[in-house]
């Protein structure tokens, strides 16, 4: 019997679009699909994810139950203990839905839910502009804002899985504003709605989308240029904040807005005027595929970890010494 090629499933679930792929055991994508995210949210989105896995399994000619690992990127914070998703304003009902439990019920235990920007960071590390980095960040700017952090070569998720939820960075917006109960201060300055809103308030023509603002700037609209200047300044302040806190080797700007050269160039030029220490930034190399590629790489990695349970098995470590192998200090006795 010939050994079947192992496959894993990768998905990048966004507020408007679901990108999904089947990858081989090395994380190479062999089939993929893109469809609009089910607007009804919650359980419907979970079903959509499962259906896309089934569809892609059929495309590569395997049974769905033979998919060895599923890695799903979602735009929100994932509780490290329960796998529950929170802070996902762009997908209704996801917060109250046990996505991990549902997918495990359908496909078995090999399922991971991960923050989408964390996966984008992994994508850039694996195949993009952060390939040699051990300390880096992926700053995603689009409808919302997010941050993926790589510290000492590993993803950093924080105590409750909400590291990098930088919508709430106290940068820009008046911290006492009532609007902040809905959206974080930083997101209120640089989210795509904020950019459109700023353009209107400054007397620009009736631009309807952030895309229009970028197009108008290219056509020489002075108001659009001023709006992008202001946006770039807030982004540069966030970059300076990250660099002060974490001393990173590289900060990658990504997301639909972050990769725009009009914005990226402005951020690059503004930074040295705001921040006297060295900081290195780069536009995302993988663009809107960063999250999906990162998910495929992470799925392949998880698959390898499943196959190789532990490296350090036959040792005479007593339970006490084994406990010492964690790097925590003991509490006082």
């Amino acid at each position: 019997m010939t050994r079947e090629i192992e496959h894993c499933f990768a998905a990048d679930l966004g507020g408007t679009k679901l990108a999904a792929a089947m990858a081989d055991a090395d994380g190479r994508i062999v089939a993929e699909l893109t469809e609009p995210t089910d607007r009804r949210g919650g359980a419907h989105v979970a079903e959509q994810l499962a259906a896309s896995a089934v569809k892609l399994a059929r495309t590569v000619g395997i049974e769905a139950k033979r998919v060895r690992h599923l890695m799903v990127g979602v735009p929100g914070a994932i509780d490290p203990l329960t796998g529950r998703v929170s802070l996902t304003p762009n997908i209704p009902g996801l917060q109250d839905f046990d996505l991990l439990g549902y997918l495990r019920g359908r496909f078995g235990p090999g399922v991971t839910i991960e923050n989408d920007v964390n996966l984008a960071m992994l994508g850039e590390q694996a195949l993009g502009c952060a390939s040699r980095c051990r300390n880096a960040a992926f700053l995603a700017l689009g409808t919302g804002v997010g941050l993926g952090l790589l510290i000492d070569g590993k993803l950093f998720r924080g105590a409750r899985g909400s590291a990098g939820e930088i919508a709430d960075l106290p940068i820009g917006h008046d911290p006492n504003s009532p609007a902040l109960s809905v959206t974080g201060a930083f997101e209120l300055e640089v989210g795509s709605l904020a950019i459109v809103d700023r353009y209107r308030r400054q007397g620009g023509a009736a631009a309807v989308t952030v895309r229009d603002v970028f197009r108008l700037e290219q056509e020489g609209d002075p108001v659009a240029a001023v709006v992008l200047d202001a946006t770039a300044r807030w982004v540069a302040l966030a970059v300076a904040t990250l660099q002060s806190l974490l001393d990173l080797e590289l900060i990658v700007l990504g997301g639909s807005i972050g990769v725009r050269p009009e914005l990226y160039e402005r951020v690059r030029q503004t930074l040295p005027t705001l921040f006297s220490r060295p900081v290195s930034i780069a536009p995302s190399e993988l663009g809107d595929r960063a999250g999906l590629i990162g998910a495929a790489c992470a799925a392949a990695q998880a698959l390898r970890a499943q196959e190789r349970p532990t490296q350090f098995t036959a040792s005479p470590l007593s339970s006490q010494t084994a406990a010492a192998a964690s790097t925590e200090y003991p509490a006082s006795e």
Partner: protein
Amino acid sequence: MPSPPMASVTRQLSRRSVFEALLHRSPISRAHLAKVTGLSKQTTSEVIDAFERQGLVRPVGRTSGNVGRTAVLYELSPEGGHVLGIDLGARLTVALADIAGRVLAEADEPTDSRGGAWALDQIARLADRLARDNHTHPSRIRSIVLATPGVVNPRNGAIEMAPNISGLGHLNVVGLLSEKLGSPVAIENDINLALLGEIWHGCAQSVANVAFLALGTGVGLGLYVNGQLVRGENGAAGEIGYLPIGGDPLQAEAREQGCLEYQVGASGIVRRYRQAGGSDVDSVREVFERAQAGDPLAVSVVDETARLTGLAAATVVATVDPQLIVLGGSVGARAEFADKVARVLLRLAPRPVEIRTSTLGKRAGVVGALSVALNKLHDELFGVAELAAVVPLPPPRAS
């Protein structure tokens, strides 16, 4: 004393297990050691015999109260080796501990104002005095860790950006001190070590994700995530004086000194009080005393300091999501100040996060330096290459 060259990993692990049990459970009998380590009685006895020959353990009495024969109880011998922790700032604090983590002595004096090589001589003098006062010889000090302000380059140990001690930047501090003290010296940022001090014996015990926010002469942040210090690519993680908070980052002075430090560093607090019309103060302590006494100008300066500190804390919460923020440093550790910061943070941070004030205060840095020096000594004696983790430390005990 290095293990014999042919020692197997099994033997190294046995030694490490017995050592660790002695470290945490002394005084302890051979039978009890065998039980807690899971090793055979024979192996345990072999290891204890070897430790006794090497001067690592000593008998301290016998079990009592049980039926049957009594057994000899052992503990780690202070002769097994000593470690030194040094905190070099405006004041110089030096502490001596034995291999079991017992703090034997501490000394504290103003740092030689001439800085540089004079400060290093002063360290050597204090170390020598502490050792002799405790009936040990400086040569028995086997591991030394120095806490220093500024950025310690993780690759070559050079100190950068240490504005508060003159003449250190161009010295090979690690090399010179190792030579003077006759043992390897490791160097680490003082706030990182203060954080490790709070984790070992202060207010952050057994917390895996902690941020230590220090406000004093300068301002800085220590980050401990998933059981590791975050140092950053060039050792400059936590240099939050440069956070673009509290003023116009385009202004030249703020840009040079760092926007946040320009406002909430000690000189910034005094400057803002004077600019607001307050007079006759030379120190930040006076500003706080006047605020306590009800001087409205001082109250507003302290409130603004707390607001900016709360903003900095909120950036930490949004970015790294710690379980706990410890406020330390001469300004940060003031209880009335911490309350104000906590109120600001409650309003700004999307997720509640606990704030505590440093319980070790000025000793935090030197206690953290001792903990790392102990880790290094234990690793030298009982490290197992296949096992990357450190031997966990017991709580320090004053002798």
